[in-house]
């Protein structure tokens, strides 16, 4: 647990620097004021502690000059802070002209994103670096809040109306997405990752494949990129995902086996069933699981579905040695 112990969040957007400047000024103000007050209190307590020397307290009614002084100085400081903080906020409200429009829908408990070029993602967001992105967002059910700490940005997704936020990532990397507005049972699993890529990588990502990649490798990348593993375990040793029972069936070793269905029937897991489960997931739900999987129709090309099926086919069952067990 000590390996990964940051005390500061990553800073990966153009606005983060300006917001952090206000933050650090406030931290300094808080530290200075707290130290001054503590020091004054301690000094007075030590200096004026009651001793048996017959000294009596000096009665002081007050001092209008001091009162004015310590009202006006804080007032000036907080007004300065207000103008500075608001100036930064106004920039946060105004995206640059070349902004790319993404669309975001929150629902219990997932984030659905659509790229300007039509690609869709769930609980993941792939964006190019050094490019302003504007999210126009809403919710299908309750209020959610799309929060990327590394970008210092957050906006509620409110049912029945659109809200917007924009950001420009200036560092390549992978960062947390959180839902910040309490939204029910799996609020803490309504999380994902934003992947900031170079412009070239983003183009490749958009085209959906890397030249010369095997279908299994391409499928593995898609599987990870679409965050399928946030519901489907791929290792029989993994019983929990993010601390709760997996929402979808274990996929390791499932290919070629016969599974019982919720409606009482049975089906052999082959390419056809995998494709159907991706495109029309509610058609044949495996027994013991709730029909919660969203459709990926339109989000994956037929080639990509073939690649994912190839990857699932390659996953070995329980008898295979596994290094994931140490989790």
């Amino acid at each position, binding site marked *: 647990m000590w390996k990964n112990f940051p*005390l*500061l*969040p990553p800073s990966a957007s153009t606005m983060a620097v300006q917001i952090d400047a*206000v*933050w650090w000024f*406030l931290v300094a*103000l808080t530290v200075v*004021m707290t130290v001054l*007050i503590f020091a004054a*209190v301690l000094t*007075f*307590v030590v200096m*004026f*502690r*009651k001793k048996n020397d017959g000294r009596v*307290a*000096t*009665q*002081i*009614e*007050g*001092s209008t000059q*001091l*009162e004015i002084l310590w*009202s006006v100085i*804080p*007032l000036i400081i*907080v*007004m300065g*802070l*207000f103008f500075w*903080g*608001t100036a*930064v*906020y106004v920039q*946060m409200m105004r995206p640059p002209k070349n902004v790319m429009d993404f669309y975001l829908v929150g629902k219990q408990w997932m984030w659905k994103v659509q790229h300007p070029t039509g690609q869709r993602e769930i609980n993941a967001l792939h964006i190019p670096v050094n490019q302003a992105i504007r999210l126009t967002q809403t919710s299908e059910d309750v*209020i959610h*809040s799309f*929060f990327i*700490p590394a970008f*210092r*940005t*957050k*906006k*509620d997704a*409110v*049912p029945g*109306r659109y809200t917007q936020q924009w950001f420009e990532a200036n560092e390549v990397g992978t960062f*947390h997405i*959180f839902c910040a*507005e*309490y*939204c*029910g*049972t799996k*609020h*803490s*699993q309504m999380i994902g990752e934003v992947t900031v890529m170079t412009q070239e990588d983003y183009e490749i990502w958009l085209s959906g494949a890397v030249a010369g990649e095997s279908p299994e490798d391409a499928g593995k990348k898609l599987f990870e990129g679409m965050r399928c593993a946030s519901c489907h375990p791929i290792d029989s040793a993994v019983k929990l995902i993010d*601390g*709760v029972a997996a929402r979808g069936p274990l996929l390791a070793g499932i290919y070629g086996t016969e599974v019982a269905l919720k409606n009482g029937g049975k089906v052999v897991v082959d390419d056809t069933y995998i494709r159907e489960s991706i495109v029309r997931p509610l058609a044949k739900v495996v027994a013991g699981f709730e029909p919660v999987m969203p459709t990926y129709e339109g989000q994956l090309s037929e080639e990509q579905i073939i690649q994912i099926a190839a990857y699932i086919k390659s996953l070995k069952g329980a008898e295979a040695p596994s290094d994931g067990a140490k989790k």
Partner: protein
Amino acid sequence: MTSSMSHPPNSQGTVRVEPDGPQAQSTYLNNGYGWKSWLFTVDHKRIAILYLVSISFFFAVGGAFATMMRLELATPQGDVLQSDSYNKLFTMHGLVMIFFFLVPSIPAVLGNFLLPIMIGCKDLAFPKINLLSWYIYVIGGTMTLYVALTGGVDTGWTFYTPYSSTYANTAVVPMALGVFITGFSSILTGLNFIVTVHKMRAPGLTWFKLPLFIWAQYATSLIMVLGTPVLATTILLVGLERLFHIGIFDPTIGGDPVLFQHLFWFYSHPAVYIMILPGMGVISEIIACFTKKRVFGYSFIAFSTLAIAVLGFLVWGHHLFVSGQSAFAGIVFSVISMFVAVPSAVKIFNWTATLYKGTIEVTTPMLYALGFIGLFTIGGLTGLFLAIMSVDVHLTDTYFVVAHFHYVMVGGMLMAYLGGLHFWWPKMFGRMYPEFAAKFAAVIIFVGFNLTFFPQFLLGYMGMPRRYHAYPEEFQVLNILSSAGASILAVGYIIPVFYLVWSLKWGEKAGPNPWGAKGLEWTTQSPPTTHNFDRIPVVTEEAYAYGHEPTITVGPGDDNPNPHYKGSTHV
């Protein structure tokens, strides 16, 4: 039906024999012993004791919920509790602590006990309404416990719509009803205090001779009377929406979910001042007594109290900076929120200045008061972070808010409540508590508190959202620190239960004024008689007239030798 008001002193059939004298002192405590003498009492002091027992019970319940949450959060995985259980725990923790502990704590216990005595009258203006307020509180509390025991509620204490009105599958309506009912208890207490302060001050006790504790209670009562009905309306609307789908908050039938947030925070932001202002009043009393000095800048503290109460009604929108509220509205709410810093800072500076050239005794109440100054300073300054929109966007709904809120409410308000409870304990029960044990507990609480909540500021800045049952692994170290602090804090809260109960029987006798304090409550015996004073006092001196021999003349017949006496120097 017995009425404890109608008995003259020493007319009771039962006389408790005190070990140190055959003449039993008549007090409000030995004026009747049966359960009826308590449950049907109209004596403000006995009602205060009823409240003391009730809110202590609810504090223990809320604390137990918090303990389970901190246990869960010791590991990143959600492994101790199910998500649903965790969500119910933080909801119930918030509801119980806010509506059944923090809001009633100082007003209903210390205020009820002290307000009539400090202004020199026999009881509150409406003693029966005062008892009614306790019964209403108990009914609301019973409903809450019923909900807790039969499955709980998982909306968060904020009841945000449309989750609460449409989507939650838990006992939202019974819980809302519990809060709704309890609100009337607040309203009645506030009403009672306002009328009492206006109409029943002792002869000579003008507004600017009132102790600052009374000013704080008065300002708090105004907020309770003006704000609580809005909460009641809002909760009623959520209930109606849930039961009859009338379309106030649910956007699918034409409602506006954000409207709920406006209505809710219109009460609930002033409500945090309901919670903190009485604490500030307590701190002024304690500091004056243990420096043996007038409070520096009395009228500035009094007016800053009113300023906070008024400004508190104009800042609710700072809870909505990321909710889609217009940027312009946000800017207005931001600037008004920043103004609150000024009266808050004025108070801190005045208390600190009061220490200067005093004769300072570091007693247990004083330890709590000094702790309050430090922790409230941090709590208040971190409020600035959240009032500035650009920084709030990052911090809102993270653990930073949780930490800020607890620094004000636990570090501020709870420290003040414990300080006040220790300060007036000898008055309430006529016995001293053991000083060493009390100081030890105060230090444990201070340390445990900071260890619990300071790491949460860092967690919030790193982006850990609040109300998360499971969290990414990089947040674990700070969460473990916080959970460890919580266990220390729990020990700190349990110790006083033992020595305070012990002191009721074995504590040293306190006498009327063990601290050498000024104020009418210290001129009467400890514990006071049912009617507080043998004769209604006549007040001729300012509040906190330390440094001079007592000049309070008791009895209407006495001539006041120096009615315009002012006992102080001016710098």
